[in-house]
């Protein structure tokens, strides 16, 4: 589904990613862990197509297509979803309006008709309950005056409505208390399926207590220096990230 080969990325001529190789198959959950500044967020942004990142070498294949040649919108419409670490506020634009515009953009892309307003409302209301959010939430401006936890839950709501194929969670656990974290994790777990993959970028193990990954990768200095199963996350939790700077780490 997603195949990243020898990806090198620079920001303002500074090399951030220095040869990433990663394969994600349908239905898999991958966790990317690493210390601050290791390039975790850069990886998620490059996948989503954020401007300001220069790919200097390597390739990304997405469902057999050259992802790097696709526009931001087309990536999104073809099923790549980025849950932001810091979701922006868009005052005046209601949540439900954004959701509907986004869903219809994706549907048109797939050659489907725009969704019926009543059907849409029904679906949204069902999903919003499962995320333990109040209905009034739909009619507020996008993230306008939301608490940190509400913003993150809103990201998961958008994910649940858009039903993407690859969900990238960029530090979704940051700034969440334990209750909010559980709700977010439940939302994500409910979306797990054999045709949907997840890429969770996180600093901490604790998210992985609730969303169990199939694969864990440690990213440091722009490279994946170790890959393993869920046990690797526990190991990191015990050891911290100090070891990665030791001479025998990685490579």
């Amino acid at each position: 589904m997603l195949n990243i080969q020898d990806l090198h990325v620079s920001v303002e001529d500074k090399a951030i990613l220095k040869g990433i190789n990663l394969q994600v198959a349908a239905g898999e959950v991958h966790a990317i862990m690493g210390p601050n500044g290791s390039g975790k967020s850069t990886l998620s942004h490059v996948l989503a197509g954020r401007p300001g990142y220069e790919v200097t070498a390597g390739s990304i294949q997405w469902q057999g297509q050259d992802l790097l040649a696709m526009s931001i919108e087309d990536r999104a419409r073809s099923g790549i979803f980025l849950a932001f670490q810091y979701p922006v506020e868009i005052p005046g634009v209601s949540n439900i309006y954004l959701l509907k515009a986004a869903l219809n953009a994706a549907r048109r892309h797939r050659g489907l008709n725009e969704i019926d307003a009543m059907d849409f409302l029904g679906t949204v209301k069902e999903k919003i309950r499962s995320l333990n959010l109040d209905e009034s939430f739909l009619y507020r401006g996008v993230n306008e005056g939301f608490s940190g936890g509400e913003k993150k839950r809103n990201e998961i709501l958008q994910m649940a409505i858009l039903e993407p194929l690859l969900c990238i969670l960029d530090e979704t656990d940051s700034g969440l208390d334990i209750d909010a974290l559980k709700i977010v994790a439940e939302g994500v777990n409910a979306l797990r399926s054999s045709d949907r993959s997840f890429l969770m970028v996180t600093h901490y193990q604790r998210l992985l207590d609730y969303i169990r990954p199939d694969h864990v990768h440690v990213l440091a200095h722009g490279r994946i220096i170790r890959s393993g199963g869920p046990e690797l996350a526990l190991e990191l939790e015990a050891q911290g990230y100090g070891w990665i700077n030791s001479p025998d780490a990685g490579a």
Partner: protein
Amino acid sequence: MSASSETIERLISQDYKPGFVTDMEADTLPPGLDEGVVAAISARKQEPDFMLEWRLQALRHWQTLSEPTWAYVDYEPIDYQSISYFSAPKVKEKPASLDEVDPKLLETYQKLGIPLHEQERLAGVAVDAVFDSVSVATTFKGKLAEAGVIFCSMSEALEKYPDLVRQYLGTVVPPEDNFFAALNSAVFSDGSFVYVPKGVRCPMELSTYFRINAANTGQFERTLIIADEGSHVSYLEGCTAPMRDENQLHAAVVELVALEGAEIKYSTVQNWYPGDEEGRGGIYNFVTKRGDCRGRKSKISWTQVETGSAITWKYPSCILRGEESVGEFYSVAVTHRRQQADTGTKMIHIGRNTRSTIISKGISAGRAQNTYRGQVQILKSATGARNYTQCDSLLIGRQCGAHTFPYIEVKQPDASVEHEATTSKISEDQLFFCQQRGITAEDAVSMIVNGFCKEVFKELPMEFAVEAQALLGISLEGSVG
């Protein structure tokens, strides 16, 4: 569009259209302005004597004035003697069919969703018998006549109701009010006249397309709306079609009079030609609009969505004379490319317990300059007066500007005046977020802008709100990326 407003639009265009072209060809006055020209205009319109005298006085006063320079706009000086004051806009050869019309113009019409036969009419194609409106006219006129509402052109009003016109004309915006008002008073060619009798709720929105027609014959319109005691009227003034004309002066005057318990709602969607990317061409829109809440508990509400004109100089105002009268101003002003807008309102509180609300939304893109200029004046007599002003600016890109000049003058310590202002920018983060959700950058801008303007759009009559939204999308096209 609702059936009734469509009906009105058709009727009006039908009423005015046939005479215009031929009249203009015969009557175009040479450039220049003097008493002879004013007399010629008045004679051509077969006006009563008092009107000629009124115009001449205005002209004599205008000759003593100089153009105002305080607005935050910049343009080459206008040579008033080089303008023709009767059929001032250039009426080009009427195209025989749509094939001869500028394709860019047609594209815009299509984007606005204007049907083909409307496009033909808007483009000035000489199509006859498109509107078989004899019956339409009857229905429309009948309905208004039944209610006793007078809705006609200013020329017709001067002919049929000279006393009413004489009683109210210039009582809100006197000829000597300002440079452009004096000019308008001397040379205005036409406009609309509305009188709603006591206790009558006007049975339909008075909506009109004839602004477009009027613009083809003269840029100096004069509108007078009188709402008698306890009456109610909603007037829609709009042109959602861009004009092809080059740099022309448009100096209109609108006067509203609300007597005791009356309510006037005046909505404008303005999209005159704004000039090209480099600022060539476009309309100079120097308009004086003022409402007089003359009676107790009267109310005047201005709603405007302004996306056009090269330069806008416009301050729809309310004089809150009657006790407990209410003034409102809701405005969206969009400037793009090289457009300059200096717009806002004046709320003059004279009566006791008068209230006013000002919601102004300025959007600036390209290299445009957008200025809000507002005056809230509370006189000593206005005990218990209240004003709330909210003034928000939205910037798109790095080369545009937003400016706010609020003037607040309070002579009554008992009054309460609130002013809130914000400036925001459409950020790259917002655009990326929307794009990541599959929404194009242009749609995202349009969505954010519409969200920003929501408080004003909800004041517009439904069909206008839809048009206004479509218009914003078109106006801001190409403002990102």
